[in-house]
């Protein structure tokens, strides 16, 4: 395995880089969209049910199918990494809209009212009071989305988009265990590293929860 790594170091490094980009870019895009939409879903309960239904619908579409749809909808090349980024952004968004809405809903009413009584309003109250309290719930969703993304990205290897998933396809074609094992280990390590980073950021953002055990 070590000789395989040293022989293919530059390719492995490039694939890892792509894997990181393809996993994280959708996370940021998805989260950036999910925050306002989730806020809307929580603020206007009427849109909650339809929003959750629509995003749930998105979530049922198998990843390979969604990757194939993307060029059709976006007019991109089938091999373009943009397809993967957009498709995974949709999954992330689907998962996080509900998480953000539920997270904001988990803010106790008396806290919101106390904040309003002290003079917070609108966006200020959202950013200074509600979002921080919702962080644990949102972070739990972000962790799931991130770890899922790392695994989903590798499926794109079937279509031929370069990243660590290529190790599975080439290993399978060559009937060669080493790249497959390496790919699995690489994916798991990436997922664990991302997970640890999110966990760390959550802890920094929620100092009042530090005494509690993490789930």
């Amino acid at each position, binding site marked *: 395995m070590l000789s395989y790594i040293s022989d293919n170091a530059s390719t492995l490094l490039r694939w890892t880089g792509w894997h990181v980009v393809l996993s994280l870019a959708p996370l940021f895009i998805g989260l950036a969209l999910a925050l306002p939409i989730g806020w809307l879903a929580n603020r206007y309960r009427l849109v909650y049910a339809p929003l959750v239904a629509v995003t749930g619908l998105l979530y049922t579409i198998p990843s390979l*199918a969604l990757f194939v749809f993307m060029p059709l909808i976006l007019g991109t090349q089938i091999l373009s990494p943009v397809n993967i980024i957009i498709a995974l952004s949709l999954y992330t968004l689907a998962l996080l809209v509900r998480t953000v809405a539920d997270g904001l809903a988990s803010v106790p009413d008396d806290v919101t009212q106390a904040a309003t009584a002290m003079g917070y309003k609108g966006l200020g109250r959202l950013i200074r009071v509600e979002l921080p309290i919702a962080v644990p719930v949102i972070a739990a969703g972000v962790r799931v989305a991130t770890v899922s993304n790392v695994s989903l990205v590798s*499926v794109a290897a079937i279509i031929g988009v370069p990243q660590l998933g290529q190790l599975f396809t080439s290993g399978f074609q060559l009937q060669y265990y080493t790249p497959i094992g390496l790919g699995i280990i690489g994916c798991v390590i990436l997922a664990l590293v991302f997970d640890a980073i999110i966990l760390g950021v959550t802890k920094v953002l929620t100092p009042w929860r530090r005494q509690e055990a993490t789930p």
Partner: protein
Amino acid sequence: MINQIIDWLTDPAHWSGTEGIVHRLVQHLEYSAISLVIAALIALPLGMYIGHTGKGTFLIAGIANSFRALPSLGLLTLIVLVMSGSLPFSIAYLLPTVIVLVLLAIPPILTNTYAGIQNVDAEARDAAYGMGMTGGQVLTQVETPCALPLIISGIRSAALQIIATATVAAYVSLGGLGRFVIDGLAQQDFPQMAAGAVLVAVLALLVDLVLIAVQRFVVSRGLTGRYARTTASSDVIEAESVNTLSTAR
């Protein structure tokens, strides 16, 4: 392009025969159903046992986190490669695939069953024991019925996971609807590929709808919140969001 896909789908020749849509659909459902049943047979009792007794909770956290990180394509290629050489040709691809599908379907069912049982109102459980129910009666008459919403959403996640991964399994020479995607890709036949994707998406959607209907049917109206709803604690929301929407596809 859309027209080409519709043409492909409406061509009767594409529906019949061993390479046809009907046959592929039946295959897909077959692998999925077998895997889901096996996974449920393993994960349901285990989750009920852990939730009821509180023993082995470390399994839940460990399994939920590590399995989600495992790339399904990697697992698929590895297990097929390891096993196929030593298996008779007829099941050389099926058995390893089913193993992978079961492995991926266990975590959502297991964690949701556990969380569902564990989240049962402590007072209801206390009252059940106080009225003279045995442990088994508490589990079957109180805990499990109350946990059904979460259990079934775990099964839904597992079913979607299985259908998605079974599509990917066409890459390792398995039948099913994924064949159209993989073959279309290999033959540069984009309409076939997209039609396959449409079929898979529709199948996933229909299966999910069927399971939602089952959920409506078996879950007590007292729990569905179609009446008065008590506000869920943040812990429950956290567990629900994580568990029901979990898993890669």
